[in-house]
């Protein structure tokens, strides 16, 4: 592993992606509008919930807003890195151009996961941090270096879990070729990350902590911010994200053995 080489290749990836994306400047603007409207929409939905009650699952409105902030950041990350690359993977495998990727003297998972970047999600990430800082203010959170470090750690873990989920689904493309709809299923489940997990019934909570670990993705980082999260939850999240990362790596290596290319 030559880190310098990888960094250089990565900067070339970014350069080429940005020049492609900037071809469609109006689209960038429309996407920005979409993410702002999306945030307004979910705050509106929350306000409907809270007009009937003071708290859902033990979270009040101001606290639930933190989850919205975290979700918006993570959604931005997904839209910036995971989503555009996933579209490419499907194309590589359907057209058989994965051959060229595998022949390159660079790690195939690295190439496939980071080839494309879409700047629109970056704005969403900014928007999420903006919401978060507003939440600091309304929740009277005393911000310490320690809580900042914990927030960063849990966010990195959430991003790793998200990445692994997306990459696992992309990997199944090798067998099923068309997995676009499988990602739609994942997307609709992930959508529930906008709400505190405690607001669901017990059985769904189990489902969202084990089958699709949404609890780890948005609820735990929010709890960390509020200082509500016990240490074992954070350690568990680190362990879960490591397991996911290692598994997705192993699964990719395993799947490549079944890759049979496609006719040109």
């Amino acid at each position, binding site marked *: 592993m030559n880190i310098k080489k990888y960094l250089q290749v990565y900067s070339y990836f970014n350069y080429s992606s940005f020049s492609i994306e900037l071809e469609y400047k109006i*689209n960038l603007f429309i*996407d920005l509008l979409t993410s702002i409207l999306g945030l307004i929409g979910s705050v509106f939905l929350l306000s409907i919930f809270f007009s009937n009650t003071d708290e859902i699952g033990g979270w009040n409105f101001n606290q639930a807003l933190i989850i919205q902030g975290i979700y918006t950041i993570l959604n931005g990350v997904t839209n910036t890195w995971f989503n555009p690359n996933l579209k490419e993977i499907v194309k590589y495998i359907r057209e058989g151009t994965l051959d060229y990727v595998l022949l390159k003297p660079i790690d195939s998972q690295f190439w496939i996961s980071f080839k494309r970047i879409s700047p629109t999600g970056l704005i969403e990430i900014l928007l999420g941090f903006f919401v978060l800082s507003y939440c600091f203010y309304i929740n009277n959170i005393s911000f310490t270096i320690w809580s900042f470090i914990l927030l960063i750690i849990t966010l990195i873990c959430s991003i790793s879990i998200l990445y692994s989920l997306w990459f696992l689904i992309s990997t199944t493309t090798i067998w099923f070729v068309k997995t676009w709809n499988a990602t739609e299923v994942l997307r609709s489940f992930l959508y529930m990350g906008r709400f505190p997990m405690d607001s669901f019934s017990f059985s769904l909570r189990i489902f969202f902590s084990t089958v699709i670990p949404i609890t780890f993705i948005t609820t735990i980082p929010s709890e960390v911010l509020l200082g509500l999260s016990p240490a074992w939850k954070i350690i568990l999240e680190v362990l879960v994200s490591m397991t996911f990362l290692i598994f997705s790596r192993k699964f990719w290596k395993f799947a490549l053995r079944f890759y049979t290319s496609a006719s040109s």
Partner: protein
Amino acid sequence: MKNSSIYKFSTLFKTQYANMLEYRAEIALWAISGVIPFFMLNIWTNNGLNESINISNVMLSRYFLSAFFVRQFSVVWVVFTFEEDALLGRVSPYIIQPLHPFIRYFAQHIAEQITRFPFALFIAIFFFIFNPQSLWIPSFLTIIISLVSIFFSFLIQFLMQSIIASFCFWTEKASSIEKLLFIPTLFLSGLLAPVSSFPPYVKSWIYLTPFPYLIDFPASILSGNQANITEGIFIQFLWIILFFTIFKKSWKAGTKKFTAMGL
């Protein structure tokens, strides 16, 4: 008879249905991705949010199940197909044919809905196993009326997306406009919360937009919740006429701008 439009459409439909059956695994997955209303129902009833809007748990679960059904049979993706066809240059042969290209897409959608039906039914049965108390059988008349309003809801969305699709002639990537329009559709149509629970400052203008007629209205009819049937269907019909006229105009203007691509 051979040249009649019914014959053309039924042939198109049969081929598209065969095509869709080929992709039934994907359609099953797509049906699963529509389960969001059930999760929302869980939040509503688990926190007792419905007490203040006077809808019982049973009625609310019927509402969300109906919302799931309405959404299943009014999903439209024409703009994405058209965009791809336009970028790959497949639109050129379609345009020369003595058949409006959108008839082809329309047949595709109908065929997909029929393929999807068994999966949606399966999910509904699953839902009733977990919520046996919410099982209900609507009267024959209710089923007919809700089918009409679901079909109208589908038509409104199909026409709205077709208008956006015709923007492809100008911008090439019209699907981002569709993603923008999807946000109000998601939050205002009643898929995540029934319109009756909306705050008054939204209720005052929402009925002037097409959104509540997309999911809330048909779902309310099907589930037996309160709905003004004749008025609702009439307004749906007005939206269809309006969007159809706009689509005809934008399509006409667009085809004049058309430049063949990717040949």
